[in-house]
């Protein structure tokens, strides 16, 4: 059976991994390549590297980081942060990235999704979406949650799929950093309405939260950062727990 994936996310600033609580108060958690290797040995199914400073500081490429990761890792990884063009992505592909993730640039220029899918294949294009519940409606935010838009989450993810996205990484800003569980209601709606895989992000605190997001939230993968970085949860223990609860995981 296809396994549910456990994905540690390494947020990167100035070449170091960090994790913000609700996107502020950054804490240092180490070297991205070393940490990535460690996670791959400890049972991570995939890794996501996001340069959270990139959009803000207009940095164009993450090529050297991608290359360094690709040389050292034997599991798939996604890299993102500040990607704006087909040229940006071409450099990352040549550097050995398996997938790239785009966020703000896709909302500002939706044609980018189709252009990337056409140039590199849908499987290469992950669209990351940050959203927040505002007056009963899930709305998309940009630039690491700093900029509100008038784009509705459910309309946007459908459009992403139609334009050629291969996967959606959905982060609920209301849940991110709370360790109170994933946003399973919107996740289940997205997962049911779309035919591409969905990565749940934001709110992981306990093993039960992962179980709930794979069952109630119908997520294909669960992503978390600080609980793994600060050793609050071991991936092997999490997989043992999920397996005992009947969730298919790679062990």
């Amino acid at each position, binding site marked *: *059976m*296809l*396994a549910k*994936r456990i994905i540690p996310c390494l947020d990167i600033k100035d070449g170091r991994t960090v994790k913000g609580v609700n996107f502020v108060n950054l804490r240092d958690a180490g070297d991205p390549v070393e940490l990535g290797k460690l996670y*791959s040995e400890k049972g991570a*199914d*995939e890794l996501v590297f996001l340069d959270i400073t990139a959009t803000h500081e207009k940095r164009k490429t993450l090529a050297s980081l991608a*290359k360094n990761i*690709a*040389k050292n890792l*034997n*599991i*798939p990884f996604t890299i993102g942060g500040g990607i704006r063009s087909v040229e940006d992505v071409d450099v990352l*592909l*040549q*550097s*050995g*990235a*398996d997938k790239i993730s785009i966020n703000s640039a896709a909302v500002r220029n939706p044609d980018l999704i189709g252009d990337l899918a056409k140039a*590199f*294949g*849908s*499987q*290469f294009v992950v669209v990351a979406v940050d959203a927040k519940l505002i007056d009963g409606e899930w709305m998309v935010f940009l630039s690491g949650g700093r900029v509100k838009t008038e784009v509705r989450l459910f309309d946007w993810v459908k459009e992403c799929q139609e334009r050629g996205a*291969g*996967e959606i990484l959905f982060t609920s800003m209301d849940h991110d950093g709370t360790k109170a569980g994933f946003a399973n209601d919107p996740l289940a709606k997205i997962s049911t309405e779309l*035919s*591409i*895989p969905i990565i749940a992000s934001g709110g992981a605190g306990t093993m039960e939260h992962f179980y709930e997001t794979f069952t109630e939230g119908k997520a*294909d*993968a669960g992503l978390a950062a600080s609980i793994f970085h600060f050793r609050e949860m071991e991936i092997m223990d999490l997989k043992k727990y999920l397996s005992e609860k009947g969730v298919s995981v*790679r062990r």
Partner: protein
Amino acid sequence: MNVAIIDYNAGNVQSVLFTMERLGIQATLTADHEQIQQADKVIFPGVGEANTTMNFIKERGLDKVIPALKQPVLGICLGMQLLCEYSEENDTDCLGIIPQKVLRFQPANGEKVPHMGWNQVYHLQGALFDESLEKKYTYFVHSYYVEKGDFTTALCDYVLPFSAALQKDNFYATQFHPEKSGCIGEAILKNFLKL
């Protein structure tokens, strides 16, 4: 040992090259006919679209070179599909080395396409595999599959049982990405390099 990785500027060829480096193997990324013909082993990687890739292969004359190779050849993902006869992906005639067809997944129970992630391989046969690999997880990313047939050497279940690996004579192929399948993938690549 001299390993040639066929470079056709489409797939994630870099990861295969990096994996060879990690295994301590000298590998060359090349589309040069002579270099490919003289290599001890040839790897035909792939991520991309079948029709565009076949056209590129024909433009470079590789459609004549690859089928005539006598050393062990390993097709990966799209590389495996292109070793077959025909792909439904944009109605593409492939290299025709392995007489099997490539079809699109038709989800019956809401399965997502592409088939993306780790899945178990089983009923393993042939030199790429040993008993310890039975039912282990390998990494897949694909929307088209090779049906189960006479040349199937491993199966995987998604929508239906399909070919996770093929072999005909000196041509070996995996639908999954051994270069992305952790230690299990490295074991399979080592088995290929030992041939």
